[in-house]
């Protein structure tokens, strides 16, 4: 009886995976086949979806802690504590996303989730690799296009970030706007700490971003994003 109830709960979670996705990387779980009450085990795809959704919960928690830490400007000790907690949650999320990709290597959302937590923990090389894999599996997966662009910025690959912006501009305008906002923050940081970038590169990028924002303000988005799909 207990076993049957547990399976039913798991099935419910899987079928309502989309509801769990929130924050910066909304990636609903793939649909799972309806399970008969007597089904003894989850399929690898269903297990992957479960791990993925667990990963999302940790990711969302980590994002909230990281935001809290960022807002904590006056109390360094408290800030450090919040950052450490965020990191722990990102690590838990990473473990779940890795588990998901292990059980279902074709689950592009989980690769995207991995990219996200690698990026948030500063491992841009691993993040780029994970996003590349997600986009190999599903080239139209706009969350990965957006966040890979942010990873490109992390390693100063500005031209690739610009290309990603254009891809989003023509396919998912809301994400293009989000990326533009992230680019603005990146610009502010690079103006304070160039991190090896030449000043003229930074200012060229600033001009480009300002022009693109002007254009975005003048044109309306027509193509509907794959909101229901991602």
């Amino acid at each position, binding site marked *: 009886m207990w076993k049957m109830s547990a399976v039913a709960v798991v099935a419910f979670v899987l079928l309502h995976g989309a509801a769990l996705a929130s924050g910066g990387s909304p990636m609903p779980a793939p649909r799972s086949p309806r399970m008969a009450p007597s089904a003894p085990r989850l399929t690898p795809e269903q297990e992957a979806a479960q791990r993925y959704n667990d990963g999302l919960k940790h990711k969302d928690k980590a994002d909230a802690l990281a935001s809290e830490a960022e807002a904590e400007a006056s109390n360094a000790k408290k800030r450090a504590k919040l950052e450490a907690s965020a990191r722990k949650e990102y690590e838990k999320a990473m473990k779940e996303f890795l588990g998901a990709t292990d059980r279902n290597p074709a689950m592009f959302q989980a690769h995207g989730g991995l990219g996200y937590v690698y990026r948030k923990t500063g491992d841009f090389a691993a993040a780029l690799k994970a996003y590349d894999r997600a986009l190999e599996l599903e080239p139209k997966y706009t969350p990965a296009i957006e966040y890979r662009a942010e990873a490109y910025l992390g390693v100063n690959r500005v031209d690739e970030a*610009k*290309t990603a*912006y*254009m891809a989003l*501009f*023509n396919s998912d305008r809301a994400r293009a706007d989000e990326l533009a906002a992230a680019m603005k923050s990146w610009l502010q940081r690079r103006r304070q700490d160039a991190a090896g970038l030449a000043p003229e590169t930074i200012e060229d990028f600033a001009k*480009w971003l300002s*022009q693109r924002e*002007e*254009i975005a303000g*003048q*044109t*309306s988005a*027509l*193509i*509907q994003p794959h909101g229901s799909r991602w």
Partner: protein
Amino acid sequence: MHATGGRAAPPDTFEWRLPPGFPPPRVPPDNPMTPAKVELGRRLFYDTRLSGNGTQACAGCHRQTLAFTDGRPRAVGSTGEVHPRSSLSLANVAYNVALTWADPDLRSLEEQALVPMFRERPVELGLAGREKELVARLEADGLYAGMFRAAFPGEPGAIRIGNVTRALAAFERTLISGDSPYDRLVYQGRMDALPEAAWRGMRLFFSDRLACSKCHGGINFAGVVVFEGMVGRVEPVFQNTGLYNLGGPGNDPAEDDGLRSVTHRRRDTGRFRTPTLRNIALSAPYMHDGSIPTLEAVIDHYAAGGRAGDNNRYKSLLIRGFAITAAEKHDLIEFLRSLTDESFVTDARFADPWRSPGPVR
């Protein structure tokens, strides 16, 4: 139904080849796009046998080099009758909410094709009462027999008026223009695609002061559009641009009072659909009756708030006049010129097949 590149498509699948940022056009379920149908439509579009006296094709009023307009103030039908209105551009016509200058109910290209073919007042192609003759003309041409069979497979008696208009509509849906310097800047990310003057003109165009984009907004510079996957129904917008004030405040010439002739509502006097500004530098003269010869004069018209100023009760509230310097006018015209898509007016896919290499009539 349509492929957008990548994998090789089966031979009966139409490939749109859409410019970046352009959504797939909406296609009626009973007239799916196929290469054979589009090619048939192109043949018919350029065929003078589609007029009663065999002198004029659709292309007579819609010339590719002029972005599918005719360069005349007002269109001239196959019998020489001059129309009250000018030929509209067919660029991106697939995205139009409504068709012709002032008919809110005419929304499908298949239905619209019937208007020039069979209208009697004024006569356009002059086919009214000659339906059987048209079918006989087409049946007599062996080329068409094969093309209709390919376009409408499995249909006995495929050469009929309904299929002529389906093929014409399918061809017209392919007339997509999206490779102007403006498109290269906005949708292709080529930041050097617009000269400085055009960029300044773009700012003016979208400014609240000039408010050009209030009517000429959207991907087609003509207001709202329809496309595949779009949710909800949109209504076409018609404006009185203050062109006339004859015989009393707001009256338009008796022979053409625009939307009012369809709705019979006084407030619709002189209201016409906002045409696209794409390729506008190629489609002079301007306005629904071709009564303004140049872009400079069009800007002067709007700067003055219309010909009759505020003495026109039916004029759109958006036509309120504005101050503009000579330099700004120059910049604005440069921007309008940046909407010209040279590849569109030279694209072999849209050209007259009777003149191209291939079967000769």
